[in-house]
């Protein structure tokens, strides 16, 4: 097998249409690789059949990690390593530690979650994207169909795409 991958690319020019088209194309038995849009469209990932994202779980975990780290740091420094009476308070003056614990939690949540997001989508500085159509970041909605994963012939799929409202159908090889 040669290393090129062959894609059929349907171009749509309306966000509501592309959601309807995804369902239509899927019902015709075509496997959709991915849809590229210039802005988020609610329900599109569900229509394609992507599993629900687990980013919120990662965010929560990072938040917990942040809380544990920062509370450990504070208790180590203020209670174990160099206990000092400050303002007549306990060594471990819990209410005073709330602000910093909160900030630490937020910091870890934000950076951990964004890091997870970048890694899970394999986004990094200088990455050259696999672009199906340059207009997908402007005003067009692009449906990519991997020919290797579909049994139907190209002309069949093209007809289905056109019927679902695609204004153009192109071939793209990588």
């Amino acid at each position, binding site marked *: 097998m040669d290393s090129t991958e062959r894609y059929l690319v349907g171009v749509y020019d309306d966000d509501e249409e592309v959601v309807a088209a995804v369902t239509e194309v899927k019902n015709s038995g075509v496997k959709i690789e991915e849809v590229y849009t210039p802005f988020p469209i609610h329900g599109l990932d569900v229509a394609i059949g992507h599993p629900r994202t687990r980013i919120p779980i990662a965010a929560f975990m990072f938040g917990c990690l942040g809380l544990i780290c920062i509370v450990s740091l504070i208790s180590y420094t203020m209670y174990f390593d160099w206990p000092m009476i400050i*303002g007549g308070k306990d060594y471990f003056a819990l209410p005073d530690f709330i602000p*910093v614990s909160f900030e630490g939690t937020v910091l870890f949540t934000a950076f951990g979650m964004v890091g997870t997001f970048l890694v899970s989508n394999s*986004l990094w500085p200088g*990455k050259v*994207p696999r672009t199906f159509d340059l207009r997908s970041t402007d005003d067009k909605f692009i449906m990519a169909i991997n020919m290797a994963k579909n049994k139907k012939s190209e002309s069949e799929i093209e007809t289905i795409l056109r019927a679902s409202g695609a204004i153009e159908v192109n071939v793209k090889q990588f």
Partner: protein
Amino acid sequence: MSHVVSPIRETLVSGGKSYHDVTNDICKQVEGEPTKEWKIAFGVSCLVFAYGAFCLGYTWWQGIGVWGLNKTVGWAWDITNFVWWVGIGHAGTLISAVLLLFRQKWRTSINRSAEAMTIFAVLCAASFILAHMGRPWLFHWALPLPNTFGSLWVNFNSPLVWDVFAISTYLSVSLVFWYMGLVPDLATIRDRAQTKASKFWYGAFSLGWTGSAKTWARYEYVSLILAGISTPLVLSVHTIVSMDFATSVIPGWHTTIFPPYFVAGAIFSGFAMVQSLLLITRVVFKLEDYITIEHIEMMNIIITVTGSIVGIAYLTEFFIAWYSGVEYESYCFINRATGPYWWAYWMMMTCNVVSPQLFWFKKIRTSILVSFILSVVVNVGMWFERFVIIVSSLHRDYLPSSWAMFTPTMFDIGDYIFSFGLFFTLFFLFAKFLPVINMFEVKSVMKGVSTNYPFKKKASGEKEKETVH
């Protein structure tokens, strides 16, 4: 798919724009040669920055003895400016996070520049923190780092240490929030880029973004959670700033109303600053279709609401000073209003309490010129508020023989000028090289808010989309 908007809402994007028009209008600024106006404005801000940098450099070199501080007034312009800038910074987060949680679609045209403003304002604030440390090269002593003094750790009971954590967390989280919002738009510019340099730079910073449905689905959760954690974060930041004062035992500072009062003041001044900047940006970059009178009116309404909260806080403080029966507290407030700093107090009262009330008149709050003037007036007032709180509480302490006045030196003033130079230099760079309006968010709400949205009819005669305006 519903793009339903309440029928009483005005349209937020005028001029019957299509998605492609949005891309063109916003990218034009980034792709074109800088205009003459931009060059002049940028040149002036660089000069201001250079003069400020000289003053700040001198301050760092000589020490903070070059300021007009004395034994009685040990905190003056440095902390005033710090609190002022941090407060201004709050509006960006408020607009992008709180209005996102409340699903306020009008935020989409203004959140990008407001967030940029947040970051630059917090940087300006940080410059005063560093300067007032006296020995800025030892700033890491404020961090809990192992050291050869014991290890001697920072005091986590102290609001000043809370502040270090709050400000640095706020700055870095805001930066991440802003950058994540920029990535899809940078990809748009990358995909249109003509020159080699812009292909390289926008390509590098857009992280290989493609806008796949899977990425967007995750992205929306990331934005939502960032907004969710930024909201309490922004409130915590100014709460902690206010605690720098409120946990002391100085009459005039030792009040429990400070946290909510400071947060309201921060939103108030921040929205005023966003208003000033946007009114200029929309004219210079011809963005009248995106930043409409409706946006300006909404901002003015928030300014009125927060201004009124601030006004009530001023009156409450006064009442409590009397009602508490503490002589020192009462004297402090009487001295504020009638003592040698009466002019600062009444400046603050006029600018912050009286002037925003003019926005009750629809004619005034929809007038661009008046909105601009009042937004500047509000920020002048908010600077005086901090000055009044800080200096007028300090200058007459318990011992009348040590009473003193504060006179700023050219370095107090110069360091303040530095922050303006820094702020505007960064803002102009941002306005030239980055999209000033969040293109993808505007596109995502356009169907509900743009005039004549179904700008094109399908040739095949598909069902007419129903768009409620």
